[in-house]
């Protein structure tokens, strides 16, 4: 190609400008801690006095000193040790973690902390590869659906011995239902980092405009569906969905949508498919009608874009079932007024999944005692209050955190009530075949959502294809 200097320059300028343009749509990369001041997105963080506008150092120091930190008989290491902590995080939360680590090191001068942060999407791949290479960190984040697989492959260490030597552990402060994901054979293998039930959220503005009463604890799913039909309005960019999203095969499909009607995706031991039982067919048929006949929930096409711009978050959905962890974001937004109540009940009762993640100590760790001291304090009631997260697993941290985050006290009380009364891990898939089962069922269900296959045929096909995959769930 005949390219003179001017053309070359034009091409070079264009090429040089593209990364800037592309960066506008790029993802937020995690910044690693370093000895020298590091940039976390916007501000420079001084490792000797970590803080930024969101988390000022003075506030952190004051709060840290005001909290009671739990005591343990597990001894501090006699000489300097370094523990590696692998977690999923975002840039903002990472500053708070840096502050926690800073104060923790003051209390435990012989424990150095090396923190590795990864995005949730890439976390499992990264650490599975490290497991294969025999180089796992001392402490590792675990999603609730991973731990049972790790336990059966002897990757994670039981915590009972450490718990017994830590009198302030306060096991009763953790919701029993939420611990089941991390337990096997009466032993606990992970300490939850967060734990929350699902709630029915509603957009008060949409209800007020339609002149309808807000949902309350008396509501059944039928009542919710009838109301959703009345609240649907508009089209295209101005469309208001009565409910979002359309239920689909997911790890907690049973607990939220099927168990109230006596149905299940898989059997309680996750070795048999039950999604084509008459109860499940009837329930999911009701939702499919709501989508295909009434257009009350987002279609597959609408979800394509809306997945990136959630209709609930953008004020285009009247009702939404999600985990209590979304309250932090809701409390901050001013676009619409919102409320939350119990998930609706069905003929068989009301169910809400208690789900969360955990930190585990790896079996390969050479510094298990130091690792315990870290997770014990980080995931204590004081640790949760220091980190100000919206869905603390420690029940004693719910109210102080809700107050600090601007979450209405009555909603925080509601969450505590649900966790104490009926939140459950029953029906929430957690065994090794979970991802395969969900991925196998999803395309079949999508064909049903497109109206290409009826609900019974879809659920029969799911049962036929998912069934053989469940052999993997027969783990020791």
């Amino acid at each position: 190609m005949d390219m003179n200097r001017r053309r070359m320059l034009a091409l070079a300028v264009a090429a040089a400008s593209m990364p800037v343009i592309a960066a506008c749509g790029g993802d937020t990369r995690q910044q690693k801690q370093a000895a020298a001041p590091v940039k976390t997105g916007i501000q420079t963080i001084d490792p000797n006095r970590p803080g930024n506008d969101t988390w000022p150092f003075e506030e952190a120091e004051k709060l840290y000193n005001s909290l009671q930190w739990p005591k343990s008989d597990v001894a501090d290491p006699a000489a300097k040790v370094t523990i590696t902590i692998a977690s999923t995080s975002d840039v903002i939360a990472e500053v708070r973690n840096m502050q926690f680590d800073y104060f923790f090191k003051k209390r435990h001068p012989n424990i150095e902390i090396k923190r590795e942060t990864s995005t949730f999407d890439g976390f499992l791949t990264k650490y599975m590869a490290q497991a294969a290479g025999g180089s796992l960190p001392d402490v590792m984040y675990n999603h609730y659906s991973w731990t049972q697989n790790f336990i059966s492959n002897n990757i994670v260490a039981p915590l009972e011995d450490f718990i017994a030597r830590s009198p302030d552990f306060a096991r009763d402060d953790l919701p029993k239902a939420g611990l089941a994901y991390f337990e096997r054979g009466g032993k606990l293998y992970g300490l939850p980092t967060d734990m929350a039930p699902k709630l029915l959220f509603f957009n008060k503005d949409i209800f007020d405009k339609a002149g309808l009463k807000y949902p309350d604890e008396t509501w059944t799913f039928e009542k919710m569906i009838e109301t959703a039909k009345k609240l649907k309005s508009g089209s295209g960019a101005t469309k208001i969905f009565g409910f979002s999203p359309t239920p689909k095969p997911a790890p907690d499909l049973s607990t939220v949508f099927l168990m109230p009607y006596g149905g299940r995706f898989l059997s309680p031991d996750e070795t048999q498919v039950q999604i084509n039982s008459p109860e499940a067919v009837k329930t999911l048929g009701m939702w499919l009608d709501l989508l295909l006949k009434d257009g009350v929930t987002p279609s597959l096409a609408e979800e394509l874009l809306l997945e990136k711009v959630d209709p609930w978050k953008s004020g285009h959905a009247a009702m939404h079932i999600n985990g209590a962890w979304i309250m932090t974001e809701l409390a901050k937004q001013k676009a619409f007024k919102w409320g939350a109540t119990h998930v609706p009940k069905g003929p068989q009762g009301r169910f809400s999944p208690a789900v969360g993640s955990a930190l585990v100590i790896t079996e390969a760790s050479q510094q298990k005692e130091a690792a315990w001291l870290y997770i014990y304090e980080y995931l204590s009631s004081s640790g949760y209050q220091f980190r100000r997260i919206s869905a603390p697993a420690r029940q004693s941290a719910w109210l102080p955190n809700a107050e600090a985050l601007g979450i209405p006290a009555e909603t925080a009380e509601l969450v505590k009530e649900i966790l104490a009364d009926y939140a459950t891990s029953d029906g929430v898939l957690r065994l090794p075949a979970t991802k395969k089962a969900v991925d196998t069922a999803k395309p079949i269900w999508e064909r049903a959502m497109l109206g290409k296959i009826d609900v019974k045929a879809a659920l029969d096909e799911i049962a036929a294809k998912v069934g053989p995959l469940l052999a993997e769930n027969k783990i020791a």
Partner: protein
Amino acid sequence: MATLAQREARRFHLFVSPWLLGFILFTAGPIIAAIVISFMEWNLLKAPQWVGLANYERMFGDPEFWESIENTVQYGVGYVALGVTFTFVMALLLNQPLRFQGLFRTVMYMPSVVSGLATALLWLNILHPDYGLINKVLATVGITGPGWLASQEWAIPALVLMAVWGAGNTIVIYLAGLQGIPKSLYEAAEIDGAGWWRRFWSVTVPMMSPVIFFNVVTGFIGALQGYVLILAMTEGGPGNATMVLGLYIYRHAFVYFDMGYAAALSWAMFAIIIAVTAIQFALARRWVHYEFK
């Protein structure tokens, strides 16, 4: 004392050794490892177990594998057919002596340097059935656009359209080829009374046939292996309509950590690519014109 030839040979080996080492460690090694792993069951957490041909037997009986092959072929054929034609036409236009020729060339190349995920987000919006640019434009002339990525029938064509948009590299290769055609050939054809179509068909196309062949071969290989943008945009949906073989391998390797099966699938992909490329080379004898043999 070493002779000059010996010294040269030593230097040759010294300079080539970093590449050789890299090739052995990071390319040949993993390829050989993948062959061995394909005969094993390995979830990364336990020691691999020898299972013989079980992964290959499973593959031949796996309907989703065949479905992914069908989707991959559809995508590959669509991408190569549309991509090769469109980019060739664009290169012909950009080769015309027009004002702002450099600007046009730069603009056509720009999509190639946009990051993949930015491209995915852009096209998710362009192809959206309700709010997308394409369907909005179609609506102005009374046509109801399809569901594109939300439709089982239109999802692959939509992905092809997006892939062709980013094919600036192919245009650059065509442009280089077009500028390498001797002007004397066109002058001779003109003296013989050839019109523009005859000059195009009897001079440009034969002279460009090696470049077209190169783009067809590399385009097919790229299309058969591609999955990243599909993963970002549709995750293989709706209803597995865009589950291409690359994505199917990725899912088994890095979502289910079923490394043995993923390795067997990778070898199937390798076999398909070799077979398609061999057929292309066999057919090339009939239509590719090399000026110097």
